[in-house]
């Protein structure tokens, strides 16, 4: 479903690419349609389980199979999860209706999909990308998933030419939200950021497990190219883009294909394309001429869905802090850049609150950020190591009681043991940071032992420093702080 049509005279987005975002002078216009399966217990219109990976055709019932006489009953929890997502995407939640989208296919049991058409649940939202790039969200509507077809024999796993096909209806009727962006995306990098951010929001609000590899999050990508200041080009829709990396690759490939086509005098035709991840190419699925006429009409088996204001406000109030706000808070707490990898990774793991805990008990937040990023990848959102232990460790390093190398060793031990008394642990290992006097003695010793390296270092050969630092470390049996050694060497050389 897409409101945008081909060769639009009026452009549907005012976002203009920067000069460095252009590709050989062409501006990319990208819009994404992302389908996500909602994390409900049961299906959108029946009581069968919504569960991935079960034995085929076990989570079925008369409604799921489209048996004659079976009627849909809307799942309130699905509506609530869709509203959570909509509100997290800054959408307006509005009274809405369901339509039938009619087409024949063996994995579509009723031969129509119940979806939302001209009155979707969530409209007019936006999502912020790094660098404060705002991508409009046109709508986020509810619909039911189809069954899953597997075709055997023949080419390319398609139904045409296959020997036989098997259908698993476990997925049929699973609640989906389709999130349609505005065509505000200008680079493949932004598209990847959009999907990544959307995924983070889905996880944060608990709307979906958003596993692209299991198909609970699926992307269709609309791509067109045009010269800045001219009407949008004809778009192509790419289906089967099943990882964030593929989103980038598919857009880059398709934009290049369209630019090359136009440059060689060709014309882009409105097509639906299939992304082949193995070959890194798109193939034509169908052209606009043989597009289905879905004959949408109001679903007479359902009544309009009118979420009352109190319900909407209750859902809004129950939203957790969203990833963007959490990244900002974590950046402010730790002094790291909000777009840094450490901040992104820790918020994605949900471990930002833990760093807050470390800071609250007096720990050094910026060191805790490094510790958690490096050593807590396999830990849950609330790591087993008590925040107080990490706080103690960070203070020991900050106050130069131990070196960063030693801190790393102790951290690994904390993680392995699920915590521990870091002061005792440091003592047991004989860890102590050397005071400057003792360190200076060792530095002098190293210089005396390797006068050749020393003169090279003084002459400005940075390579020579490594050898000197290395021998100081050896002399100190690893207790010397590398940074302090470097500083001493520099000071001596400049003296």
């Amino acid at each position, binding site marked *: 479903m897409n409101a945008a049509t081909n060769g639009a005279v009026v452009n549907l987005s005012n976002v203009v690419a920067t000069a460095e975002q252009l590709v050989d002078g062409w501006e990319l216009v990208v819009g994404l349609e992302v389908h996500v399966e909602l994390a409900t217990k049961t299906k959108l219109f029946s009581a069968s389980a919504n569960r991935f990976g079960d034995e085929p055709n076990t989570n079925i019932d008369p409604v799921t199979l*489209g*048996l*004659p*006489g079976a*009627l849909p009953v809307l799942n309130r929890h699905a509506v609530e999860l869709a509203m959570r997502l909509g509100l997290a995407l800054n959408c307006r939640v509005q009274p809405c209706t369901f339509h039938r989208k009619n087409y024949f296919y063996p994995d579509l*049991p009723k031969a129509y999909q119940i979806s939302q058409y001209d009155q979707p649940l969530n409209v007019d939202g936006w999502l912020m990308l790094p660098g404060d790039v705002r991508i409009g969200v046109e709508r986020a509507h509810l619909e039911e998933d189809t069954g899953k077809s597997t075709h055997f024999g023949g080419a390319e796993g398609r*139904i045409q030419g296959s020997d036989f096909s098997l259908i698993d209806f476990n997925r049929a009727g699973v609640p989906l939200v389709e999130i349609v962006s505005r065509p505000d995306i200008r680079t493949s990098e932004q598209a990847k950021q959009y999907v990544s951010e959307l995924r983070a929001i889905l996880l944060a609000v608990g709307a979906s497990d958003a596993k692209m590899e299991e198909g609970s999050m699926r992307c269709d990508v609309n791509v067109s190219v045009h010269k800045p200041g001219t009407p949008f080009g004809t778009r192509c829709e790419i289906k089967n883009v099943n990882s964030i990396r593929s989103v980038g690759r598919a857009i880059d490939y398709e934009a290049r294909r369209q630019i090359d086509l136009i440059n060689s005098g060709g014309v882009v035709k409105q097509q639906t394309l299939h992304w082949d991840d193995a070959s890194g190419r798109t193939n034509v699925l169908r052209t606009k001429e043989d597009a289905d006429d879905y*004959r949408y009409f109001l679903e007479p088996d359902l*009544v309009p869905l009118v979420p009352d204001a109190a319900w909407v406000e209750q859902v809004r109030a129950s939203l957790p802090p969203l990833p963007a706000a959490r990244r900002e808070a974590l950046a402010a707490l730790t002094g790291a850049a909000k777009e840094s990898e450490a901040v992104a990774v820790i918020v994605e793991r949900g471990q930002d609150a833990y760093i807050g805990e470390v800071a609250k008990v007096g720990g050094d937040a910026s060191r805790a950020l490094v510790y958690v990023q490096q050593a807590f990848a396999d830990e849950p959102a609330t790591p087993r190591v008590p925040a107080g232990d990490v706080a103690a460790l960070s203070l020991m390093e900050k106050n130069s009681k131990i070196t960063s190398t030693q801190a790393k060793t102790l951290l690994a031990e904390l993680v392995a043991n699920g915590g521990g008394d870091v002061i005792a642990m440091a003592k047991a290992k004989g860890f102590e940071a050397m005071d400057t006097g003792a360190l200076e003695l060792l530095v002098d010793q190293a210089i005396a032992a390797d006068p050749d390296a020393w003169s090279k270092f003084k002459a400005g050969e940075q390579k020579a420093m490594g050898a000197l630092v290395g021998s100081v470390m050896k002399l100190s049996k690893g207790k010397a702080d590398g940074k302090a050694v470097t500083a001493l060497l520099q000071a001596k050389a400049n003296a």
Partner: protein
Amino acid sequence: MTVRRTAVDIAASVAAGELTATAVLEENLAAIDAREKEVHAFNLVTADRARERAASIDADVKAGRNVGRLAGVTVALKDNMCTRGVETTCSSKILEGWKPPYDATVVRRLADAGAVVVGKTNLDEFAMGSSTENSAFGPTRNPLDTSRVPGGSSGGSAAAVAAGFSTVSFGSDTGGSIRQPAALCGLVGVKPTYGMVSRQGLIAFGSSLDQIGPFTSTVADAALLMEVIAGHDPLDSTSLPQPAPALSSVLSQGVKGMRIGRITDMPEGSSPDVLARLEAAFDALRQAGANVVDVTMPSMSYGLTAYYLVAPAEASSNLARFDGVRYGLRVDAKDLNSMYGDTRAAGFGDEVKRRIMLGTYALSAGYYDAYYGKALKVRRLIADDFAKAYQSCDVILTPTSPTVAFKFGDKTSNPLAMYLCDVFTIPTNLAGHAAMSVPFGTGESGLPVGVQVLAPALGEAPMFRVAAELERAV
């Protein structure tokens, strides 16, 4: 013909131990043995199941257990209502042999109330028709004159009661499919307010129009059955959030002071015998103390056109699931599209195909606004006209059918003539209102004439009061 027992009498007598359910059933089965070959009311007679059921009710009575409001009442079900483990065909080859894994809500409520199902009745395929001639399994004959049709699409259900095959029966009404056969067979037939009776388990024709309702010999029986089957069902999202209305208690209230609407711009084409009976009905109500008031329904004559866009449009979508993939008929073919085409070509009859094509066309890109979209506007106009009319009256009287029962083949070659049978019944479905047909004497050839009582949404109580008065006046 023997005097038929009413459902009210049977239920009371069986519960009191004065009559056995088995005795009631055996009378019906004997009548079926005698005349079913000639009438062909049923697609399936479930005699064994019915005997078991009747015996179990009799045992319950003996043991002093509660047997429900319809204890021992025999019912026939239109064969588009799902019955668990019992073949349900819609009189279509495409569903031949299909056994639903569940009961329709109405079927379950009837069973809970102690009713005994004697069989599944014939219908125009997928309820599309007005004579039951469109059944894939052959037509049903009118028991009152077997050279004539029983009406349709619920012709089998009407014939079953008229022939004494069951005490009462159930049909579905999308554009008149209960009321018109009730009129043609001399029975009471009710189309409840849309949403009053659950559609769960009713195989859909026009989902926004379909309602299940009873065929009975008396108004009191119809009231009793409505009280049993109506009321909210969480499995049907269009089911109204309220309990069944109390109707049995209003029947004796009379019509004194009630305002009875007479449509001054009624669509033409009714035969004089039918119009004479309508006049007699107005007279009877006047004599009982009601006031007859003139109302207008300028949009009424557009109802037929709007209906033949809305109902086929929904049907084209509802019937798309019969694709040979999961159940019912499959004609094997070289590829998927040929399998779809061959299966549906072999499985559906001409009238069903005609309506699927009509509906598909009406919803197609480029035609939607001109056809389906415009039909929806007419639908609103009709509702508006009714709303205006009901400001000055409580119910409206019209003929149910323009004519008495017609002969076989009279209208089969002319679909439009057949469609005109429903000109008075269709507007009610488009508006989602209530209506019922009450037998009110006879017309040409001594055949019964039905008068239709129209009421606004949830107007069942005044509708039944008027119907009861007409019944008393005959």
